[in-house]
């Protein structure tokens, strides 16, 4: 057998390797060629018996041959493995249009969301969030706020009274300042509690539940209010106006908020003003912002009651009204939510209808932030 014959015989493996139809066949070819007794292995063994001259001539040829066989086997193996994998994956095909598990998405109630928005807006203005009891005393809810027992404004409040107060009156143990005798009719008693507990300067908002004995299409016996209070030196009605303007601009995220202050009356503020905000009509809906009366109609909507804290209220809290003055305001949270997010009926707020909650509620991660905007776009 000549060298050339050996080599050409071995070369004939190459097409067989390239056409090997299975990994098993390829493996048997590999053993034939490169195994312990394989023809290429045998050929390599002949190198040791050769003369140096002959080895110099045959060595590179035999090594190159071995390499080409090895490469061919590796290439064919990769191709066969890929084909096998492709075939397996093709067999694993699923219907990707089948539904995945529905995401478990709960909601935050619009009232909570708006409370968080308010806290965020007012935090930037340096207002802390204050809280107080919902079951209140006569003194905190009325008398300290300059609403004495015979004041006509008390009748306007439609107060829910508790039997505890009546029983205490009958027993002669009633203490106007200590007997919890009613459900607060507004968040204003938090003003009183704050002024009693903290030294000025004071900047707070107080959101929470309030109660009036009222039930019709636009009133519910329970509703939510937010109170604002600033007590400091040199505070004027001008600061109040700016604060309300700034608040409403931040809340509705519009610069074209137009306010109209109307002189009004609250026993606990003097001067007092009701605050209307201009609305315009967009796509048949009332939208807060823009100049009422300009194209498309519009008008004024009452959103707030406000005023300079009455000197008697400041004095009732043990502060000197000649030294400290400030402003207060109160606003319906449910109403703010309705105006911003477009609910037109108050009653479903307190029904717990999951269809309504899913529609008007907010995603857990929609946390109002100043940097990201306090509102959640529809």
């Amino acid at each position: 057998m000549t060298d050339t014959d050996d080599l050409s015989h071995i070369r004939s493996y190459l097409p067989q390797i390239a056409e090997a139809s299975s990994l098993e066949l390829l493996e048997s070819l590999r053993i034939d060629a490169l195994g312990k007794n394989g023809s290429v292995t045998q050929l390599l063994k002949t190198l040791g018996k050769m003369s140096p001259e002959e080895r110099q001539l045959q060595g590179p040829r035999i090594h190159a041959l071995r390499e080409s066989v090895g490469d061919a086997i590796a290439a064919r193996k990769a191709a066969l493995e890929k084909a096998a994998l492709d075939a397996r994956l093709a067999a694993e095909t699923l219907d990707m249009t089948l539904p995945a598990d529905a995401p478990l998405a709960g909601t935050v109630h619009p009232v909570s969301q708006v409370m968080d928005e308010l806290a965020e807006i007012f935090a930037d203005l340096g207002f802390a969030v204050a809280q107080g009891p919902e079951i209140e005393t006569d003194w905190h809810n009325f008398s300290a706020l300059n609403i004495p027992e015979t004041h006509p404004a008390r009748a306007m409040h439609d107060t829910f009274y508790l039997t505890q107060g009546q029983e205490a009156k009958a027993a002669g143990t009633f203490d106007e300042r200590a007997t919890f005798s009613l459900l607060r009719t507004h968040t204003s008693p938090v003003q009183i509690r704050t002024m009693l507990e903290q030294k000025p300067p004071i900047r707070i908002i107080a959101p929470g539940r309030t109660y009036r004995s009222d039930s019709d299409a636009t009133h519910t016996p329970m509703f939510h209010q937010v109170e604002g209070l600033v007590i400091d030196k040199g505070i004027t009605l001008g600061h109040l106006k700016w604060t309300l303007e700034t608040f409403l601009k931040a809340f509705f995220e519009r610069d074209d908020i137009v306010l109209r202050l109307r002189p009004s009356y609250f026993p606990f503020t003097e001067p007092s003003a009701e605050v209307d905000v201009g609305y315009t009509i967009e796509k048949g809906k009332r939208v807060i912002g823009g100049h009422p009366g300009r194209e498309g109609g519009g008008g004024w909507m009452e959103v707030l009651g406000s005023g300079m804290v009455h000197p008697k209220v400041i004095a009732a809290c043990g502060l000197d009204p000649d030294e400290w003055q400030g402003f207060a305001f109160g606003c319906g949270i449910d109403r703010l939510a309705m105006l911003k997010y477009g609910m037109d009926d108050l009653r479903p707020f307190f029904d717990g209808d999951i269809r309504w909650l899913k529609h008007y509620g907010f995603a857990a991660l929609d946390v109002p932030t100043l940097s990201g905007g306090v509102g959640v776009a529809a």
Partner: protein
Amino acid sequence: MKFTLSWLKDHLTTDASLEEILDGLTRIGLEVEGVDNPGAALASFRVARILSAERHPQADKLQVLSVDAGDGPMQVVCGAPNARAGLVGVFGAPGAYVPGLDVTLKVAAIRGVESNGMMCSARELQVGEGHDGIIELPGDAPVGTPFPDYAGLNDPVIDVSITPNRQDCMGVHGIARDLAATGLGTLVPPTVPSVPGEGPGPDIRIEDAAGCPAFYAQEVRGLANGESPEWMRRRLTAIGQKPISTLVDITNYLTVDLGRPLHVYDRAKLSGGLVARHARAGETVEALNGKTYALSEGMTVIADDVAVHDIGGIMGGAHSGVSEGTTDVIIECAYFAPDAIARTGQALALTSDARQRFERGVDPAFLDDGLAIATFLVLEYCGGTASAVTRAGQPPLAMRSYAYDPDLAETLGGLGIPAERQRAILASLGFTVTTDWQVTPPTWRRDIDGPADLVEEVIRIEGIDKVAPVPLPRVPGVAKPTATPQQKLERRVRRAAAARGLDEAVTWSFVSEAEAAPFGGGAFTLANPISEDLKVMRPSLLPGLLSATRRNVARGAAQVRLFEVGRRYLADGEHPTLGVVLAGNARERGWKAGKAAVFDAYDAKAEAVALLAAAGAPVDNLQVMGEAGDAWHPGQSGTLRLGPKTILARFGMLHPALLKAFDLDGSVAAVELYLDALPAKRGGGGFMRPAFAPPALQAVRRDFAFLVPASLSADALVRSVRGADKAAITGARVFDVFTGTGVEPGMKSVAVEVVLQPTDKSFTDEALKAIGDKIVAAAAKQGAMLRA
């Protein structure tokens, strides 16, 4: 408070348009609630003359009229008995809307005769009650004139909301005064006639000077009490009052015109003189509204020798009220103390136009003039002879004055207004201002109570819209957190709950007594609830959530996952709480998951633990104990406690009896989490966390299957296992519980996976075996045997 434009113009000389007046009212704090022109609806009706009237050829009771409404003769079929040639009445042409009939007229054939419109009755046009025939106007009424113009119906009715401090604006005159001060015209002072009196005044006196400091009266004899004049009836009708008789209408008119309530007694029904005194125990009076009121001691009344005739300042008595036959009257003009009126009115739950004015404080200086105006009108429209005036008592005329610094307009009101301008505004409102700025309010402004009120007066007249916004000074430095730890906690658990797929509801703070009972009952009960369903303050959040669940189930919801963050109201205070109710399917049926699964107690436990973790509670250290309470399934509920006493949460299935009370069937799981029971963060809220480096060596896991008594709690077994080698064991978890084949009755198989964490060197086989032995020994103390 309603009045008409023409009425206002009796008190205010002005060229201002209606729009300007409405705008001015709102601008100065007299909020316009509505404006309505009753004439507008009748604009298409005209004054018309019947030229001829012939019998209808087909009907005895109908006539065929020829009517001229200014455009020549029209044929009209009419059934009115008074229709006749020459009559001047009111004609509606086809197209006109007849409010009293709620029809729009059209050309029609009536019994074969064409009719081109209609001659109208007062009732058909809603301008009066008459319906016996068509309206008859005077013969000289100008034919063709729009009827509203002729009848003075084109008089807009303005409805203004008067705040409780402004008694003076509960009369048209006071409103005119405010408008005049803003520059919208000139105030016309009321004409006070001089009424000569003959003979002695009526016998009146005061015993209750505190409740009724002043009681003036005048008698008129020999009068006739008929229908009041047309102009007065028209105005009263326009503002929604029903004309009754001249005497009654005069008092009602003056109440609105001048804010001065009066009362007129029928002299013939009185026995002896009148006295303002305290009511006596047991006295009753039938008031003019037909209701009988039981009076209590201390209420101020006007009485004669026999009975009470007036709940002073609130409502007169029916017995001595005037009627058509009245000939002699006593006209009362008194001053009742506001506090006394308020107390009596509240006690009797009786409100009236008089009470509204007296309790806000009428002008004490207007008794003589008010009485003179009233008596003058009575003499004018009823005839008779007036007596002298009797004056008992003295109205409180003294007004407190205030030192006022005009700078206050700017330093409090934020609007710099020149001092002289302020002086002029105050003067125009009736205040007297001395050169050194001592300001005295007029007697009709008893609401003024200090310099801040004076600021309000000048600002509201000058224009509160002129106050410029001034930025609130920024607190220096970086913004500080403004929420309390409790508020932050509530925000966290709320969003954690929403993130876990729960929907936040807001339910009433009050529930029914029955709903409160299983939760310990309501500690606070409303004395005046809206309904029995909303009567006691909730001791738990679950009743409200269960009611909401029932409504959702009734609407077909297959899965309800509701939560609420709010307060429970217990005898010791208000407690922030989170409640969760899970009802219906925990998992919907699915192509992958198979059948639907209902919620079980472990779903509730998962929520409780997850929300406690979100709240920052040390969930690994909590103990699960029983005793959730009557509302819960006794065998499928528990409490999560920090130490044996502090209950952080209740969870589990609710008791079927409770669910039945809420009309719910099936199983409902719930959680109640007590947000104020959570321990405050340790470490004073610093940011630094305990040092930690992940162990270099890999943890080893070993499984142990134990046979334990069925009654042994998994928690007890796991605690023992964990405690077997505290240094090495970093975790232990039940991964299988089995009873049945191969496990003898009364026992169960519990499989626990234990995590062993080597520290500085790997465990040797011997070390692992030693730990395993300790685990088995510890479990054995609980009655557990390692399964073979």
